């Protein structure tokens, strides 16, 4: 059975790299005595996949890992098995890497990594790092002008050297509210847009340069794409897929 665990990352532990977050959860899962499945072979490892890796230093309210388990833990008083799992993980965890929820995935659900389509972020200027004459109107004007471009070409550093890419199709939403930018951008493995790159391009468009470490980026959530009956594509949070209880899954599968 596959379970998707949503977690947050905040505070000092935001400086822990992606691979070390994985290592952290491998140990936490053992401490929590969650019956995770291991691969076969001489050096077995836990079956675990993470959705879009988060950059070092970035906080997040919506991170996900999918784990394969042999059995759900026995539900504790007044809780579902999934809630029990969350509680157990947090009881043996560090502050700043908190499990938020767990859901049993339907058999046909894509894994956390492959199904990622978009991610949302808020981005704020750090103390004293706001550009001059920055205000709501200026922000709105800049965003409007930026988004009205047919294409937004930038040079992106990739493994195979520098590549020119168009950011425009991957920007699903860009707005300024409550003193922060809100971004909903492509986070799929091939076309992932890094918030810092987008911000830099945006400010450059307005003739501004971004000072180093000027931005505080926070990821809000990660989304997958689903197709409604109407044929319309929408983004659904990775955390909304699946079921809190095994019987809900059984029921769903029975109803055509």
């Amino acid at each position, binding site marked *: 059975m596959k379970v998707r665990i949503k977690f947050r990352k905040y*505070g000092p*532990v935001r400086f822990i790299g992606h691979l070390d977050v994985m290592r*952290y959860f491998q140990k936490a899962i*053992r*401490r929590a005595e969650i019956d995770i499945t291991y691969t076969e072979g001489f050096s077995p490892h836990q079956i675990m996949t993470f959705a879009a890796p988060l950059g070092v230093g970035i906080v997040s309210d919506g991170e996900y890992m999918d784990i394969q388990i042999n059995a759900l833990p026995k539900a504790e008083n007044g809780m579902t098995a999934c809630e029990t799992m969350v509680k157990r993980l947090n009881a043996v965890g560090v502050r700043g890497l908190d499990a938020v929820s767990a859901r049993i995935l339907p058999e046909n659900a894509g894994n956390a990594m492959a199904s990622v389509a978009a991610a949302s972020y808020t981005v704020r200027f750090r103390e004293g790092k706001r550009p001059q004459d920055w205000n709501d109107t200026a922000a709105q004007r800049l965003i409007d002008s930026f988004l009205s471009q047919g294409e937004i070409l930038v040079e992106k550093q990739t493994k195979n050297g520098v590549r020119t890419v168009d950011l425009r199709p991957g920007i699903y939403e860009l707005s300024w509210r409550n003193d922060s930018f809100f971004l909903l951008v492509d986070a799929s493995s091939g076309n992932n847009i890094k918030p810092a790159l987008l911000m830099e391009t945006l400010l450059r468009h307005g003739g501004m340069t971004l000072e180093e470490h000027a931005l505080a980026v926070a990821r809000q959530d990660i989304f997958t794409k689903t197709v409604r009956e109407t044929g319309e594509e929408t983004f659904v949070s990775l955390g909304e897929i699946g079921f809190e209880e095994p019987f809900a899954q059984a029921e769903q599968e029975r109803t055509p």
Partner: protein
Amino acid sequence: MGEKLALSEEILMQIEKPERYIGCEYNSVVKDPSRVRIRFAMCFPDVYEIGMSHLGIQILYHILNDMPDVWCERVYSPWVDLDAIMRRQKIPLFALESQDPVKSFDFLGITIQYEMCYTNILQILDLSGIPLSASQRGEDCPIVIGGGPCTYNPEPLADFFDLFYIGEGETQYRNLLDLYLECRDLGLDRQEFLLRAAREIPGMYAPGFYEPSYGEDGTLKSFVPTKEGVPEKVRKEIVDHMSEAPYPVKPVVPFIKITQDRVVLEIQRGCIRGCRFCQAGQIYRPVRERDADTLKQYAKALLKNTGQEEISLSSLSSSDYSQLSELVNFLMEECAGSHTNISLPSLRIDAFSLDVMSKVQDVKKSSLTFAPEAGSQRLRNVINKGLTEEAILNGARLAFEGGWTRVKLYFMLGLPTETVEDIQGIAQLCNKIAALFYETVPKEKRVNGRVQIVASTSFFVPKPFTPFQWAAQCTKEEFLEKAYQTRTAIGSQLNQKSIKYNWHEADASVMEGILARGDRRLCEVIKRVYEKGSVFDAWGEYYNNARWLETMQECGLSPDFFTRERSLDELLPWDFIDCGVSKEFLRREWEKAKREETSENCRVKCQGCGAAGFGCGICAIART
């Protein structure tokens, strides 16, 4: 608590592995500072990954944090990238848990595990804003206390420490802290506290209350306390009942991969064997075992409390642990099915260990390790290494039959009385092992085609409190010549294609020896070398040998003086320490070595080394 960071976002984003500096690890201890009376910073003066791998620190961290009125936190050397930033921006060194400046603590404890970390100690003090010289420290500075194996000759560091704790940390810390609180309540100053500690607490050496004088030839003429009541000899502290001693079953679980990325079970302390070059074999005497049943409980708790996927046994010579098979069988049962690996270092290769290893490791990938240390039986007798060629070949044959194809061999070059024949013996032994493989394993069964033998040599460094403490150390040129001879000898063997040879840097080994057997006059050298920019000397790429030599010259000291053979009647800089093993015993062993005579190990026959005075461990057990 827990949200504070001593380093800014900007800094953390530009340095390598910021996780080294943020604390917050699982099982790290956070207390309310307003509810404790003593703040203790415990430091391993090397990078986080090395320091975090050290069991001794974890033991003390656990003991001190078990005391409700004490909060012990960890400090490691900032790596060179952060070091530069901290100097530039004048950021004071901080402890990981609270992120508070080290200077604001009551104690700064520094474990001193190897000589080449001495400049790192000065880095820690300097970055903390604590004067390097203990005599310059005011009431606003923590008490700087050193511990660990290098304190068995603390003299080259005497200027930098207020106190040294000689022996095992488990026993006297509470008494020391109580005295500290008492002195503070009485309004006594730093010097008064140190004086009382030196007088009243066993194992405490306060270097400021002793004075050396030197003869015309530069040797130590006298070494005496300058205050009444300060002991002339400081006797090592030791845990007498290991099984009752506290054990850190909730060790800190680091986020990043560290050198010892596993939980560690210390099965015994000390070693029954008296290899004559080995300091650990003497200073941790007598050997004391932990009871297997207690260890089983610890093993379960350690794995449960950390979620680590590997457990390792720790001791100087695991095969000598009397309940080894019982413990190992238990671990194998416990770990089977829970995806936990077992690692068993320092096992003698024999039928039992091969059987165990074949169950817990991938035979094809793992290698056998032998440490004959010397190439000939003659020289092995000199050093009292009770490993015979026959035993090595028997072990290797069994292993080859069991499917192993890789063998690692460790040797030392420059041992007392070594000749060209001994060096050739290294090559011949490697060759014999290779030949044995081809003889034992038929062609069609050779997994990787051929056997892979890796011979490594290190250079012998005479250490205090060993029978070789009087021995001469080779010069760099002699060392390199010996390495060259070894390489040539290996190259002329029939099976040379199956043998790979590695050797150590000679420069650093010579300096290590100078520091190991040095005296107080070296404090000035260490200080100047540090001030010229040396730090992380244990890391080959940062070690600057020319700077050390040039600085010694500036200070009017000659390397040869420290590497020479010492005469038996010479007063040695560390003679004021009583480590339990008598000088008389060491001298006897030194003479036996020269006569190529061996001594039995403690289990076979007591050699009357003096450690029986502690009344515990093997000395108190009747031999069968």
